[in-house]
């Protein structure tokens, strides 16, 4: 059945969907953490490119 989710509104119960913690949200935008993730993502991309060009 089609479900239309309403946007979260203050003072309402949280939606029944997995939500990131404040720590996760901070990590997603932290320059230091993301510099490290950028290096890791590039390594992951290299692995995928090697697989794609076998």
């Amino acid at each position, binding site marked *: 059945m*089609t479900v239309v989710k309403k946007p979260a509104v203050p003072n309402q119960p949280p939606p029944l969907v997995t939500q990131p913690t404040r720590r996760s949200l901070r*990590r997603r*935008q*932290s320059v230091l*953490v993301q510099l490290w993730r950028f290096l890791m993502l590039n390594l992951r991309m290299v692995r995928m490119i090697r697989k*794609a060009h076998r």
Partner: protein
Amino acid sequence: MAKIVILGAGIAGQAAVTLLRKKLPRKHEIVMISPNEEWNWVPSNIWVGVGIMGAEQVCFPLAPLYERIGVEFRVGAATAIHPEGDASSSRPFVEYVPAGTGGETRRESFDFLVNATGPKLNFGATPGLGPGEGGHSWSVCTAEHAVEASAAFLEAVERMKRGEEQTFVVGMGHGSCTCEGAAFEYVLNVEHELKRHGVREKGRIVFVTNEPELGDFGVGGLFLRHEGYVTPSHFFAESLFTERGIEWVKGANVMEVGPGRLAWESPDGSEGELTHDFAMLLPPFAGVGLQAYDRNGEDLTDRLFAPSGFQRVDADYGAKAFGEWSPRDWPETYQSPHDPRLFAVGIAFAPPHPVSRPIRTPRGHTYGPTVPRTGMTAAVMGATVAESIADLVRKGPEAPLHRNPFATMAVACVASAGAGFRLGSAATITMYPLVPDYERYEYGRDLESTTGEIGLAGHWLKYLLHYLFLYKARCRPGWSLIPE
């Protein structure tokens, strides 16, 4: 001396033409026939569509490039393939209509033909869909469409700054659409830009998709290992939307787009309707309508092309039920079974069937997302076919073809969730294999290689790839070191 004709200067066609030119000496002629005078890095059109990039940042003119690297360029649309020639000559040729000639056809002979024509944007499939005459929605499929969408989006933002509330609808304009990832990126960028303009609280954003679940992306969704659990992708997609206050309608077969309203059919047969102030809805794709004839002028179109208009290649097109679909149904060489001199890559090849489970409604409609054949997969197919043709030219017709099975391709996709060096974000997704194989993997794919994460680093990567692929397409020094 061999002559190779490539139809279509998109991502797949450009990968094929540049690699062929690199591999083959200049005595071999390479001809590009394309209706587009400019090359467009389509994945960045979503940024054009929200007004943070101009068309000139995602396009460049092809004629000077082809002159520099030694490719003949014909600006025009191919109309027919004659693989056996005609009564006057047995040499195969393709007919095309040059731009600005008012319909007069010309012919270009070939020894090998690569069909990389991409899709016809089939706005006509849904009444009122599209930015053209009689249309009530916008598109970001081409740079020109994205510029128009951006102007309409920024007008809506201005209305919000004056205090008006606006509803934005983004998604798929028909049940059989593909490229859900592009609409997914666009809706996240719309939300990000409304926040940046300081008007988010005045906007309702609704994502309308033909996917049975969010995060299906036409590949049947994916499973990701995360914090000790194996979690289906729809959990992450729903989380991203809920976090941003984006509503969604899934499994929608959009039936009609009117001025300021949109109607769809749901999987249970019920109807839904929304009013909107701005709608960006992608069209379904069809083949560009190429015809084929034998030497006597008899129509070969049904043998070379599937009913959708896409070209048949070395795939298994036998009719099968959903449970009988196999990764082995998908092509490996992209060569036509009808004629070994013909190849089709990117969106131009006919998929044997979808990957996602089709939706059947009580009214008897069957629809669902089609597998994406764009971006990295398109470029890899173009390069694979270029390697095969270069070997056939240099070593003769017995040279083995290069194989890169579509089903077992490794794919990487960076989906923007908003631009900005400090506040940008993108979901970086890798997937192997592209077509799930439940005989080989418990969850259909290798969980080591199938990953996803969102963050600022993804945006930096997307931005880097934007410049890297434009550099590669322009054949700047060292371009061939940059992989597809």
